[in-house]
């Protein structure tokens, strides 16, 4: 599992299109927080949730499953309970994503192993929004220990 600052920076720099699996349409849910934050930072988010398939969330068409997305996806960001993640990992590999990211509280080690064996970056039990704000700036404004020690001016990621 990727955990260090330089790997996380590389992932967040390279992955521009992010499929959000389990994205809720309700504004106060954490998945909605994350997706709207990422849009604000210039990422394209692709909602994946069979419950809302065919509708739009945050201005983007919702797909029932990863395989239905008609374009390339860089990252698969998972807001599902840990037991559901393994098939999603296989799908992430099948659609050619370069990163499987399991959100805060989501730790499925077999899924992590599947992703890594296929050459994907794999992150577990972390939040894309929090890690982005930790490394690109913002999280430091709410007193979080970012672990960033540097003598250089911040220049995004």
């Amino acid at each position, binding site marked *: 599992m990727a955990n260090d600052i330089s790997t996380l920076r590389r992932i967040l720099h390279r992955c521009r299109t992010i499929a959000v699996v389990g994205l809720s349409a309700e504004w106060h849910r954490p998945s*909605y927080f994350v997706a709207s934050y990422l849009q604000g930072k210039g990422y394209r988010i692709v909602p994946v949730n069979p419950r809302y398939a065919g509708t739009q969330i945050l201005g983007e068409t919702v797909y029932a499953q990863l395989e239905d997305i008609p374009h390339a996806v860089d990252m698969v960001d998972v807001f599902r309970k840990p037991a559901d993640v393994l098939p999603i990992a296989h799908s992430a590999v099948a659609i050619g994503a370069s990163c499987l990211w399991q959100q805060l509280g989501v730790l499925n080690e077999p899924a992590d192993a599947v992703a890594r064996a296929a050459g994907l970056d794999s992150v577990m039990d972390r939040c894309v929004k929090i890690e982005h704000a930790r490394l690109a700036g913002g999280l430091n404004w709410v*007193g*979080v*220990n970012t672990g960033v*020690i540097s003598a*250089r*001016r911040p220049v995004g990621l």
Partner: protein
Amino acid sequence: MPDHVFKPETLAIHAGQIPDAATGARALPIYQTTSFVFDSAAHAAALFNLQTFGNVYSRLSNPTVAALEERVAALEGGRAAVATASGMAAEALALMTILQAGDHVVAAGALYGGSVTLLAVSLKKFGIDTSFVDACDPAAIAAAMRPNTRAVFAESLGNPSLQVLDIAAVAEVAHAHGVPLVIDNTVPSPFLCQPLALGADIVVHSATKYLAGHGTTLGGVVVEGGRFPWDNGKFPGMTEPSPGYHGVKFYETFGDFGFTMRCRMESLRVFGAALAPMSAWQILQGIETLPLRMERHCANALAVAQFLRADPRVAWVNYPGLPEHPQHALMQRQMRGASGLLAFGVKAGVNGGVKAGVKAGVDAAVGAEEAAGVRFIEAAQFMSHLVNIGDTRTLISHPASTTHRQLDAAQQRAAGVTPDMVRISVGLEHIDDILWDVDQALAAAAR
């Protein structure tokens, strides 16, 4: 490649502050502003919804204050922190975020007087009860637990009792009951003791003391460890939609810094005890030299303790750095040094105490022992008689007639305060000069 692990001396200078994005300023700019502009109505909405991070109003967050918050969080090995206008504000904020009416706290009996009053008087007014127990005895803490207990509160190193808390043992008791251990780590500072690593869940500081370090500036900090399971069913305020912040579920949304976010967005926002940016800057200036200062505070305090121990004019000496201190081994196990605070009893002189006591404005019926303590205080030349601790200057006080005056005799005893007790916060003057002043004040006290 795993991230490099930085030592406290480096964190004390760098954590929380990289060069300013706008100007490249290397030292921390002071953002002396109440408010911050929004880029657009949508940006404002996202900020108020907590969907993005940013500054709105300095009562909630301020970039200068945030640098202090992150630095103390880093030094404590914590996940996140929120700064407050004083140490008491930090303690009140931490407890008020955890607790609600009908809840119960188990607290160490030997606490700073202000903390005792907060728990026994102020929080009690709002329906929160506290049981004070001997925190040296984890079994006593376990026995005081009730079904409605929601926090255990103690000091890592008691002020002025100088009891060392067995943090790991007390954390085990608290966790067995599903409640967080809140530790006041003011006296050791994070350089000497890291309660979170020993099992504590929340640390509070009076940053006024060793963190700021120069007796200039009030401030406080609440640090969250990030490991407490707030979803264990006992803390609905952490897991249910917040009525104080339009339905946000703090633990689910912010995870291991959910407590800090709730502390900031629910408690700090409405109680208003925010730290001024200028004060945060001054405290940070102090923290840069914290490791150097603490090493010297410890060395000077040990020398004073050894001097007093050998002096026949002294009845007793209490310093955890002395081998005969009952918790010396525990101190060595969980602290890097015994800090700069010590207490001792001045032997009553041949003249008794009534006259000196009246002169000092203490009760006319004051005993000879209390009078001897008062005479010592009054005879000091450069040791300052005041009620702060953790200054570059050596400070002396007589708790029974000052900080702990509001407590009755039984509460004073429980807090570890005796009538003859003199507390010294040993400063950074040359040790020869400190010992000279102690010696001449003892001579005066014995007359």
